[in-house]
């Protein structure tokens, strides 16, 4: 990672370890539990808020409600069996989950991935980014506008566009959500006939609809009043906490793993990162919208030049113990729609990994909450939480 960016600290940092016993508020401090079940559709997150009137004084997030023991399960399964399990981690962007873990396995094994497979992986990852950001935009407007109102309208529009991408993926892999596309050595399914034409038409259709979302949201004074100046993260805090991805790029730090440590086919194409400088919710919104456009551009540019060749770079996998890498460890980080998703694997030479870990970007994004929430009111809490785009499935594993 590049040297820390020396930006001036914007605003005063809240104290996340405030001692409530000795706190002198204007009135009584009330404890409000935004419990694991709440309609803000980001998964099961418990936020314990201490409120002084309507203003949040202290916030403590409790994680673990969606912990399913994935990493322990991966110690019991072989390398071949682990891919379909991890794409349930970040259930909104399955391709990138599989990619991180499979690339870690390949680094252990040292196998070469054919160029065609790398192109297919990149195209899938980029279209997955678009789908993930569309879902984020929909649920974000839902948080702001409510279940009966303008938020639902934006939600329906975003999901309508996302359906086009899911249909594409269904043609490619056979499933709409959990694809199991990647395997050690390459990809499992090859591009069907005519898929490139369909991808280009889908990209054109979504690209034509993005201005509609902007007209409903970007310039709307109500939306701007809700999001500008709210939930400002300064770049220093973001880097200290390990926040990455659109959350970091909205603070002005130009760090994109697709450019810093190119993987798959990213070294063959130019990636323009979206940057914003305010670090508030509006900036994160703008960054994700720009990333959607950029991903569509990358996917359409790559699909024309997919080289011919095999899609698997090793012996085909026909048994459960087919992958047996040498002892060692490997860490591979990729840029998922949420940030830096890292796959770390330790091997002891057998067909089952000794230890697997997926470093989730949402976990680090959530750790910013005790710094961001004090001083805001409850409607702001929901907006800030939504803008960080946490997915509890990957934060808890």
């Amino acid at each position, binding site marked *: 990672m590049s040297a820390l960016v020396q930006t001036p600290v914007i605003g005063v940092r809240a104290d996340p370890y405030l001692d409530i016993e000795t706190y002198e508020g204007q009135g009584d401090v009330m404890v409000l539990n935004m419990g694991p079940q709440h309609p803000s559709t980001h998964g099961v997150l418990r936020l314990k808020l201490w409120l002084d009137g309507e203003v949040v004084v202290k916030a403590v997030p409790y994680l673990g409600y969606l912990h399913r023991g994935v990493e322990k399960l991966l110690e019991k*399964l072989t390398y*071949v*069996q*682990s*891919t*379909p*399990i991890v794409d*349930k981690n970040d259930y909104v962007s399955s391709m990138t989950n599989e990619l991180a873990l499979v690339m870690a396995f390949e680094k252990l094994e040292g196998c070469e991935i054919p160029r065609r497979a790398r192109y297919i992986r990149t195209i899938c990852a980029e279209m997955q980014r678009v789908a993930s950001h569309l879902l984020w935009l929909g649920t974000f407007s839902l948080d702001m506008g409510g279940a009966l109102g*303008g938020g639902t*309208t934006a939600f329906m*529009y975003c999901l*309508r566009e996302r*359906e086009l991408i899911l*249909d594409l993926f*269904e*043609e*490619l*892999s*056979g*499933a709409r959500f*959990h694809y*199991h596309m990647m395997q050690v*050595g*390459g990809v*499992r*399914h*090859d*591009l*069907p*006939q005519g*898929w*490139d034409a369909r991808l280009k038409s889908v990209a054109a259709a979504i690209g034509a609809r993005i201005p*509609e979302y902007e*007209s*409903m*949201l970007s*310039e*709307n*004074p*109500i939306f701007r009043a809700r999001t500008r100046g709210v939930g400002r993260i300064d770049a220093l805090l973001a880097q200290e906490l390990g926040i990455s991805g659109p959350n970091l790029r909205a603070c002005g730090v130009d760090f994109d793993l697709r450019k810093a440590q190119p993987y798959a086919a990213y070294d063959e194409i130019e990636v323009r990162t979206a940057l914003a400088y305010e670090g508030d919710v509006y900036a994160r919104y703008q960054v994700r919208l720009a990333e959607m456009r950029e991903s569509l551009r990358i996917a359409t540019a790559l699909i024309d030049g*997919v080289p*011919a*060749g*095999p*899609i*698997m770079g090793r012996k*085909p*996998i*026909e*048994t*459960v113990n087919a992958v047996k890498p040498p002892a060692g460890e490997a860490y591979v980080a990729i840029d998922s729609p949420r940030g830096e998703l890292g796959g770390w694997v330790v091997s002891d030479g057998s067909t089952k990994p000794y230890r697997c870990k997926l470093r989730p970007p949402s976990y680090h994004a959530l750790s910013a909450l005790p710094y961001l929430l004090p001083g805001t009111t409850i409607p702001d809490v929901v907006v800030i939480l939504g803008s960080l785009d946490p997915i509890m499935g990957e934060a808890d594993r």
Partner: protein
Amino acid sequence: MSLWLPMLDALRATVRNLGRKPITAMHPFEPRTRAPRYRQTFALLHEQNGDEACIGCKKCEKVCPSEVIVVAAAKRESPATGKKRGYADDFTLDLQACIVCELCVQVCPVDAIVMCRVPNEPGFEREDLFLTMKRLYANETLPRAPAIGSTMIASHAQAPAPAAPAEEPTP
């Protein structure tokens, strides 16, 4: 005025959709088209000579990450060829816990198990989602998803493969 114009823009964006056709799929009143590679339920196949294709090697049982397949293997004489070969006396698949990963299809050496392109009918009881051997062989008539083990192995071959092989479902 600059305050009101974006508000009117938003109203126009919403009302424009009144003129567009709704995208709701009126399932189950209208048939829903699925992609050719859509995979959901399973079928066991017979060979050309009428024999059951499954040789009871249990590779699918070992590879399943959710452990939903249970195979009871045995060796018998084949009525078609007269030679002794492996069979599966009982083959069950619990569709409730299946994560639809296609690994069993991929590892099967004789392409006995395949996935079907139509979804399993929803049922009211747990037994409706438990595929017994009888049901698996009955599903043989359902339209199939094209990715079966041998096709995947072919596309994974080291030799350069054609650019975009067309994969049509086998009837």
